[in-house]
């Protein structure tokens, strides 16, 4: 976030202050967008001043300077709004816990009036403390585009009531979106999502928040094995399990167990349980497919019409069925989805996998080739072309 001489000041510590200071200002009744602008200005001034004059209490310093900016902003429109400057002259002590501030800001940023792309951008900026440039880089758009997206989102929030508890399900979805946006850019969004989810679990006892954190940790643990040195995808069954991050797996399992103990299951907890079973297998052959299938049964039972409402879960279940009851049974499961997601690459990729499991390599090659044609991700496209060629070469 910081370039130049201020590098000495711990970046993580500064970023951790952003949500706390911002939440304090918004709670005091400031408009979200005005407060965010004032805080950005205060941060710029901090970069200028702190190297020579480090503050004794960085948070109080930021609040004071941001408040001064707010006073200036209010003065300039004092004719329109006759507000008392004295209200802002002395910052009231912000006596809330760090976790509450994070949760409060997440509810603001994930407001249901905002489109998902805006929710993601605003969350990364206001809660994650990333710069507009960093967020733009992460999503491969010009900085001006991301700046505009953020300022439009902030304008949308103007005048909205932000003192009501928001929808935690939306917050969880936004964090998961950030996680899945991945690690391609200069900024590791997956690590950022994990950091935010960890903060969130300090603020709420909701087991799904812990389920989401566990799911991210248990998947992220496999990242070092997921690509070869050339950047090519390595599928789960071929990964070098020695590269998996055992520390993250242990933390994920611990977090998951504490969530499951609440006995209020939800999709993130169930998906985390499936990820944990994969992580737990010392080799692909030792994967506990019957137990994975049982969890998939739970997952599809969470929605009334899973084929339409949660085709991804039904597709995952089809793979598990293929491994437990045989490939033909798995393929029959995918048939039910043809109408819903038969035009998506993942449906064809799963069919390819199941055909391969059945030993029908020509059919696998055709399915993989069709999946490659539909894939929208470069690495996945290349991987599927390889799978098709491999299946065709082995069947010849």
């Amino acid at each position, binding site marked *: 976030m910081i370039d130049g001489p201020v590098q000495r000041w711990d970046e993580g510590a500064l970023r951790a202050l952003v949500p706390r200071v911002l939440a304090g200002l918004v709670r005091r009744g400031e408009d979200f967008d005005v407060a965010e602008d004032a805080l950005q200005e205060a941060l710029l001034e901090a970069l200028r001043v702190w190297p020579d004059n480090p503050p004794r209490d960085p948070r109080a310093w930021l609040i004071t300077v941001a408040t001064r900016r707010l006073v200036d902003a209010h003065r300039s429109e004092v004719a329109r709004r006759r507000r008392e400057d004295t209200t802002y002259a002395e910052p009231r002590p912000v006596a809330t816990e760090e976790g509450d501030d994070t949760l409060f800001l997440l509810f603001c940023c994930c407001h249901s009036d905002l489109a998902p792309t805006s929710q993601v951008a605003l969350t990364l900026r206001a809660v994650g403390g990333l710069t507009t440039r960093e967020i733009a880089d992460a999503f491969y758009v010009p900085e001006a585009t991301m700046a505009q997206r953020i300022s439009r989102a902030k304008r949308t929030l103007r005048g909205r009531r932000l003192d009501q508890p928001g929808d935690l399900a939306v917050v969880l979805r936004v964090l998961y979106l950030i996680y899945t946006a991945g690690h391609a850019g200069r900024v590791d969004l997956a690590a950022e999502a994990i950091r935010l989810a960890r903060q969130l679990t300090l603020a709420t006892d909701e087991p799904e928040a812990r389920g989401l954190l566990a799911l991210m940790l248990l998947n992220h643990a496999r990242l070092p094995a997921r690509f070869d040195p050339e950047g090519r995808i390595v599928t789960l069954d071929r990964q070098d399990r020695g590269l998996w991050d055992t520390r993250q797996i242990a933390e994920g399992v611990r977090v998951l167990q504490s969530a499951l103990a609440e006995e209020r299951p939800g999709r993130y907890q169930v998906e985390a349980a499936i990820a944990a079973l994969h992580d737990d297998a010392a080799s692909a052959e030792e994967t506990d497919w019957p137990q994975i299938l049982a969890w998939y049964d739970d997952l599809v039972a969470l929605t009334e019409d899973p084929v339409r409402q949660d085709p991804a879960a039904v597709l995952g279940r089809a793979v598990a069925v293929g491994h437990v009851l045989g490939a033909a049974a798995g393929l029959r499961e995918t048939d039910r989805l043809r109408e819903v997601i038969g035009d998506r690459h993942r449906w064809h990729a799963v069919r390819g996998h199941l055909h391969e499991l059945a030993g029908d390599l020509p059919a696998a090659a055709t399915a993989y080739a069709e999946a490659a*044609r*539909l*894939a*929208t991700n470069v690495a996945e*496209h290349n991987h599927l072309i390889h799978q098709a*060629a*491999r299946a065709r070469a082995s069947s010849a």
Partner: protein
Amino acid sequence: MPKYLLLKHYRGGPEQIRKVPPMDQWAPEDIEAHMAFLKHVTELLEENGEYVDAQGLTPARTWVRYGGPGAAPVITDGPLPETSDLVAGWWMIDVESHERAVELAAYVSSEPGPGGTPLYEWIDVREVMSVAPSED
């Protein structure tokens, strides 16, 4: 410095010199070599300070036009004649001259195909209109 697009096509353009099957029917090691070469081209351009952008397009195409007042957009997504032009992707380069762009396009076209020998694929070289004042 002029900018150029070096366009690769799924189909269209002059008749291909070498007829090859779709890539999923190549030998796995030939695909490997082909993709490694494309990656190498991007790295080479970056090293030379000539790289601007590289992107691939999915083959799915949708033609859209205004449907008139109050009407839904008109959409056509095929089937289109096999001869219609379909761009697969591009490199955008920033180079000294048209000659350099041609040289790089020819190099791209030497990419290995089945059997590891050059594909001789036609590359579409297009100059990007400049916002800088022209030199002549």
